[in-house]
């Protein structure tokens, strides 16, 4: 049994004009110490997926179905009181903008001690010692002085180090990091990612990394999910997906990267843009932008227009695409005939 198991998670936002399905049928697992990347464009539902794990979705959002099991406990429907013992303690979060996450009127030390005292019966002096040790772990220069500084006195990179220190404060099992380096510069991003990777490995902490940057996912994670319009469309080992993406959207996303084209040539763009969640196309949500809705012989694959694709296992990956399903069936039938 995995440490975290998410099954058929459904999240909706109740709006006056009806429910918007922000997340549909999301399934994934995370083992102890494993690093999972969630990739997608804005509006694909990757942040909602991460927030719903800890029931952090603000109204009018609600979890409409599915389950989140963490270490044998069901988290959906758990009382806030019980959830608070898990949030920030066994599963902690790192958000995109470190300035928004830190309290501007408390010193770094006060915020760290506050967090420790909320979860443990602990003396202030001891809490301060733990806070200092965590700041040392994230390699902040002169950690002792930082404890008495306010967030605005630190640079962006240093604030994100403080955030990581706070996330590690209670030795969590899982860290959920939502675009942790998007607001930072390239060289600082590289350092923060290297630090996060090193700490997760050293302390055997699981990581759920939400990002739109395929390069970062490729370097940090072992497995990845690709999301599109509220659904997971492909998941599997990161290296395999990066080297040989199977879903046409993942392929398109990879091919659209400037690294993939000859300098000066046109990039391989995906036409159109992601549909809005309250006006999804029928069938596969990607079909209006997909260049594979026709078979090789020119006939139209009607299922793309009418049926939501089911997940099929292809190699080590799971893909939700009618084309992949068809290809797998075609491979399997001749194989069965010859064995007969």
């Amino acid at each position, binding site marked *: 049994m995995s440490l975290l198991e998410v099954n058929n998670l459904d999240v909706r936002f109740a709006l006056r004009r009806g429910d918007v399905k922000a997340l549909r049928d999301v399934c994934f697992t995370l083992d102890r110490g494993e690093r999972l990347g969630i990739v997608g464009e804005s509006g694909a539902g990757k942040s909602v997926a991460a927030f719903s794990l800890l029931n952090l979705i603000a109204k009018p959002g609600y979890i409409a179905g599915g389950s989140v099991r963490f270490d044998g406990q069901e988290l959906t429907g758990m009382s806030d009181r019980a959830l608070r013992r898990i949030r920030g303690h066994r599963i902690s979060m790192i958000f995109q903008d470190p300035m928004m996450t830190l309290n501007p009127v408390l010193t770094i030390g006060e915020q760290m001690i506050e967090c420790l005292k909320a979860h443990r019966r602990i003396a202030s002096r001891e809490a301060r010692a733990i806070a200092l040790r965590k700041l040392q772990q994230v390699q902040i220069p002169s950690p002792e002085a930082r404890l008495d500084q306010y967030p605005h006195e630190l640079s962006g990179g240093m604030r994100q180090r403080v955030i990581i220190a706070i996330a590690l404060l209670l030795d969590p099992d899982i860290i959920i990091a939502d675009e942790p380096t998007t607001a930072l510069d*390239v060289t600082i991003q590289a350092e923060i990612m*290297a630090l996060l990777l090193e700490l997760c490995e050293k302390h055997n902490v699981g990581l759920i990394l939400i990002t739109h940057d395929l*390069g970062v996912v490729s370097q940090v994670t072992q497995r990845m999910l690709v999301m599109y319009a509220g659904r997971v469309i492909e998941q599997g080992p990161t290296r395999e997906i*990066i080297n040989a993406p199977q879903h046409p959207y993942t392929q398109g996303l990879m091919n659209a*990267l400037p690294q993939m084209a000859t300098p000066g040539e046109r990039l391989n763009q995906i036409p159109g*843009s992601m549909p809005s969640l309250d006006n999804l196309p029928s069938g596969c949500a990607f079909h209006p932008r997909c260049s594979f809705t026709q078979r090789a012989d020119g006939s139209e694959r009607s299922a793309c227009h009418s049926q939501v694709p089911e997940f099929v296992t292809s190699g080590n990956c799971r893909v939700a695409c009618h084309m992949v399903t068809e290809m797998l069936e075609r491979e399997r039938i001749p194989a069965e005939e010859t064995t007969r």
Partner: protein
Amino acid sequence: MTATMTAPAGETAAPDTTRPLLEIRGLEKRFSLSGDFLEQLKFKGGKLIREQKRVHAINGVDLEIQRGEALCVVGESGCGKSTVARTVMGLLHPSAGEIRYDGQRIDDLSTQALMPYRRRMQMIFQNPYASLNPRMTIQQTLEEPIRLHHPDWPRQKVADKVAEVMASVGIAQDWGKRYGHEFSGGQRQRIAIARALAVDPEFIVADEPISALDVSIQAQVLNLLMDAQQQHNLTYLFITHDLAVVEHFGTRVAVMYLGRVCEVAPTATLFATPRHPYTRALISAIPRLEDDRPQHIRLEGEVPTPVDLPSGCVFHARCPHADARCREEVPALIASDGGAQVACHAVEEGRLD
């Protein structure tokens, strides 16, 4: 009558293709942090003294942009790359130095005299949510620059021009009646590009035009910019922090750090053999798809504040190759192999290959 033609004596009025389209010489820009005169007065040690604090956003930048090329300026936030773009466009006045457009000095011109240049150079901004007027329809947005620069054009000619420019960036004619908020980020950036192209410019300054967009949309907008370059024979000054985009898009690259240019080189040369220690670190920090492990060069510390500039080379405090000379003497851009120019004592002395 046009100021375009009033070239100084001795220079030909016809466009000279050998001359760079844009020349920036010794450009400096400082922003005052201390408010007005009275706020600058401080009482120290029994004396009343005037104290001024300044942000040194650009500290002596020299750049040339040739016709038809795309010069990319890269660097981290606060390095002054956007300030360079805005100063070139005349949105900010330089504190020192000069900017020449097609041989003519433009940084000291009056608003009136600048008008012909404003038509020839256009700007695309980073945030398409802020750069479109929310109270104007797309038609009005696209007509405005044409009306401003060609007040004598009849209405039909303006409408034809708008239709033409809309078609060239691939936006449907019926968008004209709609407002900016009805469009997605990528669509808005298309409109912003159409607005820039509406007055047939020859030079476009693009300040992080795709940073606010998603990956699949970035590719669309980048393709559009490259198509426009071919169709209209445009020259670009392209500001970005995304090195992958630079590698794909740029003819030449200028790397900036703390208000100074540390390396200028043709794109292929820069990515194959980065010379300046900062460029090396920057390129090594790009998250690559191929390797599993980050192998980046770690830089000590952080970018110093542009309020108190370090002495000597601005990069010396973080540079693993810095010595006494680096701490005292400001390095100048010196021509190196492969058309590159590098401002580094270590490279010049051969301490660094």
